[in-house]
């Protein structure tokens, strides 16, 4: 057998395991290294060019001028708005996702577990655009939420809320609150699943031990369950935070006319033809995520990995 060509290849690979590893890793490393990181660096490079204000042509000389643009009030506004939204969505998803994940990890067995996975994943099976437009219908002035508030004779409450600055608007579908709700809905599964996975690894005896040593359920949650679920929450928050930072479709369809980073990138590279500024904007989420990951690592979020 070993005289055949394939046989000799097998023998060689068996004698030199590193050859096999190299052969297996070459395609993905090429993909990551050339196409993925390559385009990232191309993007980075673009952000150090600038645009000539009169001709609209790109000036291929190294400059920090484009980054300076980011600090102009109207651009800074976009960044602050996007980061605040990403934070709010992340916190909201963690608060809503934790009990769901806890139930699934601790109590759901057999068909209940299947139902949990189905319930969490089902929204991911349908098109993102369809979901967002459905929410527009739900949140619209003629939508089901408005109808519900009217039926319950609570329209005054909704109107009072909508008259608030920043979060309010003409209707929920054109308010920042609407944007928040849709973000929360769309990214929630990405928060629930990592938390569930981390809670799944916490033996029940941990909580019993905590109670046994005198901790009330609230203390047990704070001192044992939350620290042990922390890596899962961080993993989930990386998804919700970065996905919200980069999204440009949801705020386009549901929300006020105030722009987010993704929309700014979309407009600067498209209609405005200002690729350098679009690139500089695109670097912002990367920087923020790097800072966030550095902070999470310092907090020990990855110690349990």
């Amino acid at each position, binding site marked *: 057998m070993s005289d055949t060509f394939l046989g000799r290849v097998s023998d060689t690979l068996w004698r030199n395991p590193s050859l096999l590893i190299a052969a297996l890793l070459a395609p993905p490393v090429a993909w990551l290294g050339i196409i993925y990181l390559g385009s990232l660096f191309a993007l980075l490079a673009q952000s150090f060019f600038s645009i000539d204000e009169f001709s609209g042509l790109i000036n291929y000389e190294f400059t920090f001028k484009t980054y300076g643009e980011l600090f102009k009030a109207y651009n800074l506004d976009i960044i602050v708005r996007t980061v605040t939204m990403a934070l709010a969505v992340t916190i909201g998803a963690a608060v809503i996702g934790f009990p769901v994940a806890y139930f699934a990890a601790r109590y759901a067995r057999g068909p209940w577990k299947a139902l949990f996975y189905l319930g969490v994943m089902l929204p991911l099976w349908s098109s993102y655009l369809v979901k967002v437009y459905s929410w527009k219908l739900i949140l619209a002035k003629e939508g089901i939420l408005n109808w519900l508030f009217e039926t319950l004779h609570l329209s005054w409450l909704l109107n009072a809320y909508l008259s608030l600055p920043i979060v309010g608007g003409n209707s929920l579908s054109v308010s920042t609150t609407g944007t928040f709700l849709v973000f929360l809905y769309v990214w929630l599964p990405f928060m629930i699943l990592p938390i569930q996975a981390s809670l799944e690894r916490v033996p029940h*005896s941990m909580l*019993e031990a905590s*109670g*046994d*040593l*005198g901790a009330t359920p609230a203390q047990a949650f704070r*001192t044992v369950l939350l*620290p*042990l679920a922390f890596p899962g929450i961080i993993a989930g928050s990386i998804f919700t935070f970065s996905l919200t930072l980069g999204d440009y479709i949801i705020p386009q369809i549901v929300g006020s006319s105030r722009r987010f980073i993704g929309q700014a990138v979309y407009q600067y590279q498209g209609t405005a033809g200002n690729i350098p500024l679009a690139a500089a904007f695109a670097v912002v989420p990367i920087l923020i995520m790097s800072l966030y990951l550095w902070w999470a690592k310092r907090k020990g979020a990855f110690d349990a990995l």
Partner: protein
Amino acid sequence: MTAAVKFSGVSRHFGDVRAVDSVDLDIAEGEFFAMLGPSGSGKTTCLRLIAGFERPTAGTIEVFGQNMGDVPPYKRAVNTVFQDYALFPHLNVIDNVAYGLMIAGQSKSARHKTANEALEMVALGGYGQRKPSELSGGQRQRVALARAIINKPKVLLLDEPLGALDLKLREQMQEELKDLQKKLGITFVFVTHDQGEALSMADRVAVFNEGGIAQIATPRELYLHPQTPFVADFVGSSNVLPASFVQTIVGITHPASLRPEAIQITAQGHAGVVRSVNFLGSATRLSVQLDAATVTVLCPLSDTAPNVGETIHLSWDGADMHVMEGVDV
């Protein structure tokens, strides 16, 4: 004197499964009490009932005279050493041990001082800064012990604490646990499926079988006078002679227990064929087929063991044969 732990008609049913079924139990203060039984016999559920992790379906549990019916685990003056130790992986050893004191609101310096003393007591001084994952099984076991005694519980519950240790370490820990119990004077309730462990450590042993207690007695009493065939078999692997056979010897129609080491190979007596021979080191274990029963015999090392298939004669002192009068045929 009030009992440290008192069960009155306690049951715990999970659906149709009667994990614990009308158990009555008195554990005295300062006692080293073992709950012995095969897996699924209800001993661990009993321990969890004392700790408060389970609530009884029926009956009452008292700890030092106080009814535990509506008392949650965190308000009970009992602490548990868990089978898997349940050390908190995100805390280092000293914070694990000091956890109960932290919950009680003690300052960091005060609780670390007490925790260090507790660690010294279990011979782990200087290990405070390590993470549980950096310790061996035996060391984790000691940390779990130190953590459980730091709140000065009235009753310490131990759920198969030595189960995961190797034989040598287990024997060493048995000694240390006994010493510790004497030093602290706390009531120990110890769950194990290892009869040797129960007999060597406990003041009294409750043998569990199918959710009920088969017998509560001192180790010696249990070994010499088992009251049911189950106890005879489970504790010390005694031979259970069938009632018909006992009838031919002493004229009473009840089964009887007979310890393997009480049987001698003699020139005359009950004839039987050797079915198997197992060398154990300190003795040789024989399985001998008599007319009415198969018995296990321990043949001392000094004697020459017979071969398989050989016919031998067995006899024993009538006093060693314990007739179980409480058990019908």
